[in-house]
């Protein structure tokens, strides 16, 4: 193998094995930062040996063994070594001041280790930004550079965010645990929030030149599928995965050749990905079979499914969508959901009724700078033939979005109303 091929192969193995490896190490040394350092050391060892010796048959076990040797080595010499290593030593020493039991390494608890890693990465002591960065890094297998490019921020900012997050987890002595009972719901909701935030940043980027960044949607879907495997009895986890699958099924219909957005009613539905739709519908069924009250993600998935089932925009069951929005507004009230509900009111009961539902929100502080409020209002006004007012709304919406593609689309729609 040429060196670059070998390194590419090692990188792939690494990305597959890293989450489980870091999870197992974090359980043993009880510190995520230390665990990641040890895993990195194992990667360095692999990069030295594998290009010559070939990739071992069980690379996960090899990497675990390498991390173990490294940890024991560091533990024994921790008093004499530099700060990073001393830190590793402290982490290890925290466990009854002896070398931890690495032989319990990669065992049947692998799923639990991963789940603990998910929960700690999305822990409430961390800022939302830190949760996102740490989750993509530890579970999504993204490099800091890849995360930085995805969120359009400088690489050092992400690197520092991750370092600080790991330090916070150590300082706050956050347990490497799966939450139980009442705690579980709140913690799970944080995890789902982080994953959906990543997805949405890919689906409709809040800033930048591209309307969508599909690789972020893929990362989020992947994280969601991992979580659904780990928590098969959580209905809203299946709900979120289904929601992402169905939304992602429209990715290729959502832009034209030059990258301009195409909105839902105008999309060529033949381009929708039927495989993802099928997976989404199956996810909804799986969630509903669990027989619990529908949570916010399952409800949103059910709304998305109404669109997915309609072969033409005109066949959309807006009455059902409106009743799902009513339920969603009760379960998880928010200004954005109220805004989406107003769209459904407009489709189910006519633009005048939609405008009525929308105008209740006009003074809502949370929506004051949200571009979709004037954009939706513009749509309704067009349908009512109030074109001058509509133009004003589209222009206002264009001035509020930070996404270049979306701004073009809104300005264009404004120009058309004359």
């Amino acid at each position, binding site marked *: 193998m040429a060196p670059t091929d070998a390194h590419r192969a090692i*990188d792939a193995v690494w990305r*597959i094995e890293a989450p489980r490896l870091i999870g197992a190490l974090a359980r043993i040394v009880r510190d995520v930062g230390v665990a990641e350092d040890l895993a990195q050391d194992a990667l360095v060892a692999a990069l030295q040996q594998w290009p010559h010796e070939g990739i071992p*048959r069980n690379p996960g076990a090899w990497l675990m063994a390498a991390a173990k040797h490294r940890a024991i080595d560091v533990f024994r010499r921790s008093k004499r070594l530099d700060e990073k290593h001393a830190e590793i030593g402290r982490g290890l020493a925290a466990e009854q001041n002896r070398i931890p039991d690495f032989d319990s390494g990669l065992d049947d608890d692998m799923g639990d280790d991963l789940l603990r890693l998910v929960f700690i990465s999305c822990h409430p002591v961390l800022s939302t930004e830190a949760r996102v960065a740490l989750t993509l890094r530890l579970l999504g297998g993204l490099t800091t550079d890849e995360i930085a490019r995805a969120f359009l921020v400088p690489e050092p900012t992400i690197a520092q965010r991750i370092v600080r997050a790991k330090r916070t987890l150590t300082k706050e002595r956050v347990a490497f645990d799966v939450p139980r009972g009442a705690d579980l719901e709140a913690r799970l909701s944080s995890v789902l929030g982080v994953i959906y935030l990543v997805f949405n940043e890919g689906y409709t980027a809040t800033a930048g030149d591209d309307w969508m960044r599909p*690789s972020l949607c893929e990362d989020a879907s*992947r*994280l969601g599928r991992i979580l659904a495997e780990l928590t098969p009895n959580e209905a809203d986890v299946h709900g979120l995965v289904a929601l992402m699958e169905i939304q992602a099924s429209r990715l290729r219909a959502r*832009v034209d050749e030059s990258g301009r957005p195409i909105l839902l009613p105008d999309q060529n539905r033949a381009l929708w990905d039927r495989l993802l739709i099928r997976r989404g519908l199956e996810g909804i069924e799986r969630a509903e079979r669990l027989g619990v009250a529908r949570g916010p993600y399952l409800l949103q998935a059910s709304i998305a499914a109404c669109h997915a089932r309609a072969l033409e925009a005109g066949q959309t069951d807006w009455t059902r969508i409106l009743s799902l929005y009513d339920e969603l507004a009760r379960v998880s009230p928010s200004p954005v959901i109220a805004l989406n509900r107003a769209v459904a009111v407009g489709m189910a009961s006519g633009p005048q009724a939609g405008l009525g539902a929308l105008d209740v929100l006009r003074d809502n502080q949370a929506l004051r700078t949200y571009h979709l409020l004037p954009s939706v209002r513009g749509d309704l006004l067009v349908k009512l033939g109030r074109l001058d007012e509509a133009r004003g709304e589209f222009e206002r919406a264009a001035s509020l979005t930070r996404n270049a593609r979306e701004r073009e689309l809104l300005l264009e729609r404004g120009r058309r109303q004359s």
Partner: protein
Amino acid sequence: MRFLCLYKPGQESTGAPTQQEMDAMGALIGEMSQAGVFIQTEGCQPSAKGARVRINGGQFTVVDGPFAEAKELVGGMAVIQVQSKAEAIEWTKRFLAVVGRGESEIRQLHEMPAPE
């Protein structure tokens, strides 16, 4: 990015898989699911139940199975979502290690919009 993995066992499928083979495959699919890469998989029945349909100069020919050239026989397919071709290759190696013979052709599927 998504890959279609076409498995060519190099010979006609010989009856149902053993319990041991099914367990090993189940474990691999579990691992792939837990890594979030698994999208879909299907296995093919013997080629005697299939046919090859061709068009040439506007004329169709239909050749019923079984097919003679074992090398080209498709045994099954999977669709996986991964971050790189190298990752798709790695999962394919793990699949081939379980089945123990044959080859897999892996093909990246069109994505639209095209990835940046």
